[in-house]
């Protein structure tokens, strides 16, 4: 496969007992671009995410993370934390999973655990307060501050994460994922529960992440305004299979997609579209 891809999912199938949540799904995400995974509730989007990020082991299929100048990583063979650690795939959750009893800054420090662990000489250098550890800790705080400023939470750095308003928690979760310095950022419904203004700010943040960090983003989203505005590529799922793929405009006009969202069959959807026009 060519170098411009970051992730390729081939014939991914995930069964839970008799239920087929994802059935023979194949798609690819381009490097440095924003790929959206959309579909009605229960289409299997989060299951795909959990397979990519290692929380589920796929029943069959291959998930490859392409590295520049290195061999591919087979994500379906790695354990959960190793995907984040070795393959540099970070994720957020549909229901926010911050560390509510830790401060905003601490949340961002925990995200840099693996780098700091190395710097602290597996704790021993840190325990004696070695200068190299102090320097590493300072760099980690600096990185956290950079992200705090980008998500406009610098003034609340020392507040408990659980005390933040909902929209801030969403942004903090993204910043926390970015503090792991990922190659691929997977966002599970980042705009859920946000108002229009917050959604717009989120779109801006994601676009700036793509532009400044060059991070590839894979995103599940129901908020079509966000999807249409920022996505470079859209994959549409329904009942565990891919029903359409392409640019946002292309997908929006696809009768199959509209049928899936309306819960109607294709003919009805076409008639709805025509009557609408």
């Amino acid at each position, binding site marked *: 496969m060519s170098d411009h891809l970051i992730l390729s999912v081939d014939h991914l199938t995930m069964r839970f007992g008799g239920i087929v949540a994802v059935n023979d799904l194949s798609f690819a995400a381009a490097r440095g671009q924003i790929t959206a995974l959309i579909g009605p509730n229960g289409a299997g989007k989060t299951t795909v995410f959990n397979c990519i990020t290692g929380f589920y082991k796929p029943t069959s299929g291959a998930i490859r993370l392409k590295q520049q100048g290195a061999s591919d990583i087979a994500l379906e063979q790695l354990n959960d934390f190793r995907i*984040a*650690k070795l393959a540099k795939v970070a994720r957020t959750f549909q229901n926010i999973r911050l560390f509510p009893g830790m401060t905003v800054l601490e949340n961002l420090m925990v995200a840099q655990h693996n780098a700091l662990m190395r710097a602290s000489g597996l704790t021993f250098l840190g325990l004696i307060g070695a200068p190299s550890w102090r320097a590493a800790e300072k760099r980690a705080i600096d990185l956290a501050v950079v992200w705090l400023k980008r998500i406009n939470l610098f003034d609340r750095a020392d507040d408990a994460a659980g005390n933040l308003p909902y929209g801030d928690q969403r942004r903090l979760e993204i910043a926390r994922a970015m503090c792991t310095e990922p190659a691929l950022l997977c966002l599970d419904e980042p705009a859920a529960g946000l108002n229009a203004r917050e959604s717009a700010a989120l779109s801006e943040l994601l676009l700036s992440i793509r532009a400044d960090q060059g991070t590839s983003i894979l995103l599940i989203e129901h908020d079509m305004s966000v999807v249409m505005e920022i996505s470079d590529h859209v994959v549409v799922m329904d009942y565990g299979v891919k029903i359409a793929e392409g640019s946002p405009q292309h997908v929006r006009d696809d009768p199959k997609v509209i049928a899936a969202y309306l819960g109607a069959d294709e003919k009805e959807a076409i008639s709805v579209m025509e009557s609408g026009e």
Partner: protein
Amino acid sequence: MTTIPSDHVKPSPTSDIAFILKKAFISAAVALVLFSLMIGVRTEAGPTGQLIYWTRFDDLAAIVAAVFGGSILVEALRRWVRPIGPGTLIPAPVQSAVAQSSRFLAPALLVFALLVPVLFYNQRYILDLGILVLTYVMLGWGLNVVVGLAGLLDLGYVAFYAVGAYSYALLATSFDLSFWVCLPLAGLLAACWGVMLGFPVLRLRGDYLAIVTLAFGEIIRLVILNWQSLTGGPNGISSIPRPTLFGIPLTNDDDGLAALLGIEYSPTHRIVFLFYIILSMALLTNWVTIRLRRLPIGRAWEALREDEIACRALGINTTTTKLTAFATGAMFGGFAGAFFATRQGFISPESFTFQESALVLAIVVLGGMGSQLGVAIAALCMIGGFELFRGLDQYRMLVLGMAMVLLMIWRPRGIIGHRAPTVYLKKAEAISSDLVKEGHG
């Protein structure tokens, strides 16, 4: 319960009285059922082994009446005056003074601890009690790493205490190694056992984790009890060597410390020496724990307590994180065990029952999970307080139990329930206990 303002619509006084009476009757009925057998009937073994009993219905009636009256009083106060709690019972100036002085509490306690042997030099009883309290402070701080920071409920902590004690006893009696050589070995062995316990329980959470750790504590005790050839079984191990000061024994011999210094020998020297050993060991535990909290491993422990799934998504190896928590906690338990063995000079499995685990866990929970100062205060109250109530003989347990119940009602997250952040940009603000998770195994 204490902070809810009573500005809701007040019902009429008659319905109030009816409610209060109803509640009082229910309380009295519960008390009647509870105490009818506990107080109403007293049984004893007669001279020939038969059961004799007599009734104490007047005592029972007094208790039930007290519950009835007390219920009316408490409920009336709550309805017509204001809710009862530390916020209302303790006047505001006292509260603010306490809050002010709490900053100096830790240094004051430390200075006091350092001065105890000077102040109470001639009171052997106080010195022994101090050593006991400090042993439990150290155990509490050790368990705090596992329960308070990592949020892993460990009911078998005494196992590591036992491993440490027996490691020292066996190494010292069999190989003639000194206390200072054995101490790190005992800690290391206990840490190994911590990892061994950690492996099977990695996948367990909450209640299941607690049960397996409980079983582990019992297994260790039963092995010690039954492995006669190694551990001496129920007879225990005696004549465990006492610690020396850089090889100088604290005895009445010619090469003892007193003779070397040219002062008169006193057995108190050894007690004071032991006191300072356990004090420095406890302070080392505290220092290491405070340092670890500010290192990535400590933050990972706390993050694990907050949300394990989020930890995994951030690339944190939850397996090694849990194992290091178990190993660190176990190591401190092992140190404390080695000290216990050298202090007692004799150990047997009886010292390592579940009761000890429960006591240490109670200290951690009462102190406030994760709070170093809270654990120290709780150990002081639990162990010292228990001794203080010695005059109450049979009511001692009752008083202690009631104190614990009241504390848990008023301060459900322990004496010091809030969490101090490990890193800050401008100002470290305490995090309310409402936000901090307890961990779920």
